C-alpha cells in the first residue's frame, strides 16, 4: 500500500523537522517567523492567483445540471434550488452546496445482488462525515482567533463556550476536537475499506488527511496532555499579526511542530485539490440559472463557422426537389 504509506511517512518527516530544528539546532526563528510568514504569503497569493486564473477563463455555455423541474408553464411548480431560474436562486443553490453539501446528501449506494438485481440504498455517511469534518475544522480555526487579537473577541468566547459544552476536563474539552478526529478517521478508513475508494484514491488524497490529522493531534497534545504555556504562544502570534519580525520567546517545541504543519498545509493548499474550497463557488453546472432559452447567454469566443446553406442544398437537389413538388427558390 505504497500510496497510503508514502504520505504517512511524508507527514512524519514533516513533523520531525521543526522538532529537531528547534530542539537541537536552535532554528526557532526560521520555524517561528520566516516559515509562517512565507506560508501566509503563499496561501493568500496562491489562492487569489488560482481564483483569478479560473475566473479569467470564459464560460462559453450555460450548462447547469438540472436536478429538478425547470420553469416552464405557469401551472407547473418549478424547483427553485435544483433548477434555478433567477440569479438569487442559483446563488442559494451554491450556498446550499457550500454550507450543507446538498448534492452529497443525495448520495445512494448501488449494490449488485443475486440474480443480477441492482439495489440502491440511501447512503449518507459520506455526507455526514464530510460535514462533520469541514464544520468542526471551521469552528476550530475560528476558535484560534483568540490568539490573534489582544482582547478575545466576543464570537470566540461564544464559540468556545458552545464547543466546550461538555465541561468534562480541565482545561475544558472541546467537542470539535473529538469530532474532527473521528471524521478524519472515518474519511481515511472509507478510502481503505471500500474497494472502489481504495482503487480511485491517490497519494494526494491521503496526504492532506494525514497532515490535518497530525495538526489536530499535536494541538490536542499541547492543550490536554503537555499543557503548553500559552502566553508566549499568544505573544508570538500577536507579533506575527502585527508584522513584527522579532524573535519568538521560550515556547515548547511541540508548538513549532503544530505551526510548521499548518504552514505546510497553507503552502500546499493553492497547488492542490484543496482548492475545491474556491472552485465550489465557480462550478458552471451549479452556479448558473437554468434560463438559457429565455435569455441569450453570450459566448465571448463564439467561433465563426461556415455551414451548408439552404441555397447550396437546393443547388445539389433542385431536380429531385422539383420532382417531389417541393417549392424551390431558383428555377
Amino acid at each position, binding site marked *: 500500500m505504497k500510496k497510503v504509506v508514502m504520505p504517512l511517512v511524508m507527514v512524519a518527516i514533516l513533523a520531525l523537522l521543526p522538532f529537531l530544528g528547534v530542539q537541537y539546532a536552535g532554528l526557532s526563528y526560521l520555524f517561528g517567523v520566516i516559515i509562517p510568514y512565507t506560508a501566509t504569503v503563499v496561501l493568500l497569493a496562491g489562492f487569489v492567483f488560482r481564483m483569478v486564473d479560473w475566473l479569467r477563463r470564459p464560460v462559453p455555455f450555460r450548462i447547469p445540471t438540472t436536478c*429538478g423541474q425547470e420553469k416552464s408553464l405557469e401551472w407547473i411548480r418549478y424547483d427553485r434550488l435544483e433548477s434555478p431560474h433567477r440569479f438569487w436562486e442559483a446563488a442559494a443553490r451554491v450556498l446550499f452546496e457550500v454550507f450543507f453539501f446538498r448534492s452529497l446528501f443525495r448520495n445512494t*449506494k448501488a449494490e*449488485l445482488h443475486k440474480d443480477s438485481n*441492482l439495489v440502491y440504498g440511501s447512503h449518507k455517511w459520506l455526507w455526514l462525515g464530510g460535514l462533520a469534518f469541514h464544520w468542526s475544522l471551521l469552528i476550530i480555526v475560528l476558535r484560534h482567533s483568540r490568539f490573534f487579537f489582544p482582547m478575545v473577541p466576543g464570537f470566540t468566547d461564544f464559540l468556545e463556550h458552545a464547543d466546550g459544552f461538555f465541561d468534562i476536563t480541565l482545561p475544558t474539552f472541546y467537542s470539535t476536537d473529538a469530532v474532527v478526529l473521528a471524521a478524519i478517521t472515518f474519511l481515511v478508513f472509507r478510502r481503505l475499506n471500500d474497494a472502489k475508494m481504495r482503487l480511485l484514491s491517490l497519494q494526494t488524497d491521503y496526504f492532506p488527511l494525514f497532515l490535518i490529522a497530525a495538526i489536530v493531534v499535536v494541538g490536542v497534545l499541547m492543550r490536554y496532555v503537555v499543557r503548553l504555556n500559552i502566553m508566549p504562544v499568544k505573544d508570538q502570534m500577536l507579533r506575527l499579526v502585527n508584522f513584527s519580525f522579532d524573535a519568538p520567546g521560550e515556547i515548547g517545541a511541540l508548538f513549532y511542530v503544530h505551526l510548521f504543519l499548518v504552514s505546510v498545509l497553507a503552502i500546499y493548499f493553492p497547488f492542490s485539490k484543496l482548492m475545491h474550497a474556491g472552485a*465550489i463557488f465557480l462550478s458552471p453546472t451549479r452556479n448558473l440559472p437554468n434560463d438559457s*432559452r429565455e435569455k441569450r447567454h453570450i459566448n465571448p469566443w463564439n467561433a465563426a463557422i461556415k455551414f451548408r446553406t439552404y441555397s447550396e442544398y437546393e443547388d445539389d437537389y433542385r431536380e429531385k426537389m422539383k420532382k417531389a413538388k417541393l417549392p424551390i427558390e431558383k428555377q
Partner: protein
Amino acid sequence: MSKYVPKLSELKKEFDEKPSVLKGDYSAREWWDIPVEFRDGNWCFPGKPEVLADLGFANPRKWMATDDDWQLPAGWQKIISDGLQSRLKKYRSLKLFLDSCVRCGACADKCHFFLGTGDPKNMPVVRAELLRSVYRHDFPLVEKILKGFSGSRKLTEAVIKEWHMYFHQCTECRRCSVFCPFGIDTAEITMMVRELLNLIGVNNNWILAPVSNCNRTGNHLGIEPHTFVQNIMSLAEDVEDLTGVNVEPTFNRKGAEVLFITPSGDVFGDPGVYTMMGYLLLFKHIGLDYTISTYASEGGNFGMFTSNDMMKKLNAKMYHEAKRLGVKWILGGECGHMWRVVHQYMNTMNGPADFLEVPVSPITGTRFTNAAATKMVHIAEFTADLIYHNKLKLDPKRNDHLRTTFHDSCNVARGMGMFEEPRYVLRNVCNSFHEMPEDTIREKTFCCGSGSGLNAEENMENRMRGGFPRANAVKQVKDRHKVDSLVTICAIDRASLPPLMKYWNPGVSVYGLHELVGNALVMQGETKRTTDLRENTMAGFENGGDDEE
C-alpha cells in the same frame, strides 16, 4: 440477437460470479496498471476514410481498434497537448473540473457503464482521471521529486487507446454530475477528449457518418429531399388508412406559422415512425399552421459528440431555415441530446433569433416566455399546455391495452429539467402508468446505454451492459405492475431501448409519448378505431369496427 453480445445467461452468470470492484473486490492493482482490451462487442468501428475526407477531418485511413498500430499522425502528442491547452483556455468548466476533484467517490457507483461492467475505469472519477493524469504531467518537477505523488503519467499511445475505449463508454448523460458535490460533469470532459481524439483521427463511424449525412442532406440518416417527403407522406397514408383522417403535412412552405423539426429517426425508424404519426394527428386535430423542412430535417445533432464547431455547424440550419421560411417560431419533436443542444447551446451559438417571435400557442394563446429568446418550444410543453386548456379531445381508454412506465431521457432530464410536462401528457392519454423506482427516474434517471453515438451494432455488448441499470428498473415495474410499455421522449431511446428490452426484458415494447397521444386523440370525422397506430388491437375496442364485417 447480435453476434456482438454474449447470451443473457452468460452475462448474468458473470454478474453473479465474477468478482468486481462493484461487488467489493479490490484486486490490489492500480487502475493505470490494468490493460485495455478491445474485443468483439466493446467498441465502435472507426470513421470510414471517405466520411473523414468529406468532413475535412484529420488522418483518414483504414484501421481498427484491435490493430496494434493505430497509424496516428506524425507529432500527435503535440496535437493533443496543444489541443488540450487551447481548450483549457476556452472552457472554464474543463479547467475547473480537472482541478477541483477531491476523489470523494460519490460518483463512483452512479455510472450505468460501471454498474454494467464493474470496470473500475468506468467510475466517473477514474474516467476523468484518465485525462487528469496526463494534464497533471505539466508539473514534471513535482513528479520527479515525489515520484507517483499526484498520479500523473506520460501521454503514450496506450493512453490514447484507453481514452478511445473509455470516452466511448460514457454517454454524456450527466448522472454523475448530479451527485458530485462540485457539480463536476464528466460529459464536459468526454466532449473535450472526443474533440481531441478527432484531431488525430481516432473516431467512431456511427457518429461521423451521421454528421457527414446531416451536413449534406440535412439529416443523420442521409435521406434526400424527395425520399424524406415520400416517407412522411406514406406515414400520412398509414394514418388515413387507420383513422380515415387526411393529415396533409406540408414541406418547405413559406409563411407557415410554425416550423416543426424532429429527429430523422421519427421519419424513418421503427418505432419512431409511430411517434411521427402521433405528431401528424395532433397537428391536424388542432389545425396547426406548420411546415416541415427537408433542409433542416434533423432535430438531433451528432456534431455534439464530435466537436463544438461541428455541433454549431449542424445546428445553424435550424435558424437559417426558420428565417428563410419566415415562420414565427420553431416547434421541436421528442429527442434527448437535440434538446440539450437547443436548450443550452443553440441561441448562444447561432442566435440571436430576432427574426422570430416569442412563441405563442395559436390554440391556447399561451406565451412560452421560457423560450422567449431561443424561440423554440418542446412538443411536450406544447401538448401539456393544450391538454391543460382542454383543447384536445382525448380518449385515454384507447391506450388501455398498454401498461406504461416513463423513461426520463438523460439530456431532457439533466440538461433541461423537463420532468412534469411529459408525465402530465402521459397521465392524460393513458390509464395505466407506473413509475420506476425513485433512484432510477427524474434527475437520477439511467441512460439507455447507447446515447452520444454509441448505438452501433458492433458495440452491442457494451450497450446491453450500459443499459442494464435502466433495464433492471423496468424489470421491477414489469414484475410488480405488469408494465409492458416503456414510454420515452427521445429518438435514440426509441432506437436503442427495443434491443435492450428484447435482451433483458422480453415482452416490453418501446413507445414515443406522442404515439400514445395519437392513439388517444378522437379526430373529427374519424372512422371507428379498433387498432392503435401499430395496428395492435386496442382493449375494449375489438368490436368497434363491426361495419368492416
